[in-house]
């Protein structure tokens, strides 16, 4: 008997505003109003400037390791813009732009990378989970959060962000499988930036697209130009609608590029060619958005100048606020371990700087 085709897969790609300024009005019009587009451009510019400042802070010893977001601003921003304010945003660490749009203060993110847990103490009203460091683990939390919302009959969905490297992790596959099989309203957004530190995409995924990974779990999948704010908004709108109306997950591959190093501790020149970086600099989401605004007569160089001045004031003020926060008390490392501190932990806290634990109980000890 002949082999029969039982299933065929096609992956669609959406691009609305490309790096040459071509704009697909049919798909793009109505997605983002003019005033919003100006605000979104300003948000990306602000995030970009923060990256520059953060880099200098790290280099001058005022901040620890920091992962620049440069080049990847459009994806999370597009999602935060089009989602409801009370939809969960479950991110890793290259989604600052979306978090700031949601209202997370810049100083929170700075504080986190300055080595202070209080940076993660984000008010629940932002519906943004704290930065997730272990790669590819947070998508399961998004599935759980979406599940809790479905359980209570709320319309809130969860949108989660992760990189292409994260799709190699088992937890990604478990999250996709849970969300698809248990009908959970999740939007999976993979920011494919081609590099997991020094590991190229071909070592993370042999399939022609990352998007098709979602197909294996029965999810509709879409690839978009991840540096195209319009395409990102379009895709998340599409997926969010399916999540809200049908209570089902979708998978979006946002093709983008990390213009900077993985973190300030990395040197990308060790593993990738400058020529490749230069190509992607041309595809920068900020440049094409600005050009588009100028074409629409919504922007000019004097507005740009005024905006850059505003951004500088805002970001510099956030840095001042972050640096002005006094160091935590030493005892703080204990105080949030449990709702109620166990006696032996309270004892460790209360004796941390005075004497050994044994001497408390009348045992002779040496060395203090």
């Amino acid at each position, binding site marked *: 008997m002949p082999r029969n085709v039982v299933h065929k897969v096609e992956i669609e790609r959406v691009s609305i505003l490309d790096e040459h300024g071509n704009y697909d009005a049919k798909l793009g019009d109505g997605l983002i109003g003019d005033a919003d587009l100006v605000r979104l451009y300003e948000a990306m510019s602000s995030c970009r400037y923060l990256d520059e400042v953060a880099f200098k802070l790290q280099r001058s010893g005022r901040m620890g390791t920091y992962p620049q977001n440069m080049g990847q601003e459009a994806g999370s921003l597009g999602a935060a813009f089009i989602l409801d304010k009370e939809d969960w945003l479950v991110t890793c660490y290259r989604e600052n732009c979306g978090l700031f749009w949601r209202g997370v203060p810049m100083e929170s993110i700075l504080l986190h990378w300055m080595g202070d847990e209080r940076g993660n103490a984000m008010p629940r009203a932002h519906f943004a989970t704290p930065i997730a460091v272990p790669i590819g683990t947070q998508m399961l939390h998004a599935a759980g*959060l979406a599940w809790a919302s479905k359980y209570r009959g709320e319309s809130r969905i969860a949108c989660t962000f992760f990189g292409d490297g994260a799709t190699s992790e*088992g937890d990604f596959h478990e999250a996709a499988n849970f969300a698809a099989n248990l009908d959970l309203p999740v939007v999976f957004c993979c920011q494919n930036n081609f590099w997991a530190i020094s590991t190229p995409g071909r070592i993370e995924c042999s399939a022609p697209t990352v998007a098709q990974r979602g197909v294996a779990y029965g999810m509709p999948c879409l690839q978009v130009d991840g540096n195209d704010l319009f395409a990102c908004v379009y895709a998340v709108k599409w997926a969010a609608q399916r999540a809200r109306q049908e209570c089902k997950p979708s998978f979006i591959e946002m093709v983008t590029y990390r213009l900077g190093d993985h973190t300030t501790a990395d040197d990308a020149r060790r593993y990738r060619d400058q020529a490749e970086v230069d190509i992607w600099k041309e595809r920068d989401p900020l440049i094409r958005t600005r050009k588009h605004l100028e074409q629409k007569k919504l922007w000019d160089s004097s507005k740009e100048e005024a905006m850059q001045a505003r951004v500088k004031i805002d970001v510099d003020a956030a840095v001042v606020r972050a640096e002005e926060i006094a160091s935590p008390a030493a005892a703080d*490392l204990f105080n949030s371990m449990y709702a109620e501190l166990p006696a032996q932990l309270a004892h460790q806290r209360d004796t941390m700087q005075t004497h050994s634990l044994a001497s408390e109980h009348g045992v002779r000890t040496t060395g203090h």
Partner: protein
Amino acid sequence: MANLNLVQAINLALIQEMERDDRVIVLGEDVGTNGGVFRVTEGLQKRFGEKRVVDTPLAESGIIGTSIGLAMGGLRPVPEIQFEGFLGPAYDQICSHAARMRTRTRGAFTVPLTIRVPVGGGIHAPELHSDSPEAIYSHQPGIKVVMPSSPYDAKGLLISAIRDPDPVIFFEPKRVYRAVREEVPEDEYTIPIGKARVVCEGGDLTVISWGASVIQCMQALEKSSRSIELIDLRTIYPLDLDTIEASVKKTGRCGVVHEAPLTAGMGAEVAAQVMERCFLHLEAPVQRVTGFDTIMPYYKLELNYMPDAARIALAIEDAATY
């Protein structure tokens, strides 16, 4: 009041908490239609529906990771991991997220989660179905670790665990599941996490144990002519150091019994704490009767691995006559 075994007592606790609080949901592999491989969740899905008793895909990290999300989203998930040998795939979610969430967000996000896990050997199970990993999770700050040895304690402790605002791993000794029956009140009651139980009082020697080993200790005690105080820790973390200290200061001699391997087992922590708190009262070194630093053997040799009444009795004599 009914005469229940451990399985029935845990089942009753789950029913009562699910009736009391609709944020409580049960999830895991085979927990629904099948009632769990040990039948601990028997009848729950029929009673509370598929929405609250959920058969999940076969993926332990997925079960715990989604439970973390459920808990952050305001529910009180009670996931089951089928056997302790399969807790490993969820280790990252437990230790990198559940345990850390409260402190790394300074209380902005919390994970009220109770992970039920059958534990330990003695039931002729296949490999990886008989381990005792309680020390591994007690070493991880941010979680609580509970292991009852009796139906009465199991009911009261499970209710406390479900109501606890922090993540709890609730180990259920398989060997005790159907081995012991006792009166378990129908009425609601709780047993505080972090409080040990003095099983029987005595003046010559303190024996400290938990889980199924408590039963082995009781057998050893029955054969001994000495006056022995037996303490069932019930909670492995946080340890009830006050109860341990009071007892050892009274008896001056102490033994610790557990199924898990010797090295860096919780017996080591108990021994160190006894040294710090009771040094001048001790008349003998702390004795440890434990599993060996070997892989838990297949079941033909499992009884040679686990502490039994004879080994415990020898240690009691060593400590008493030192």
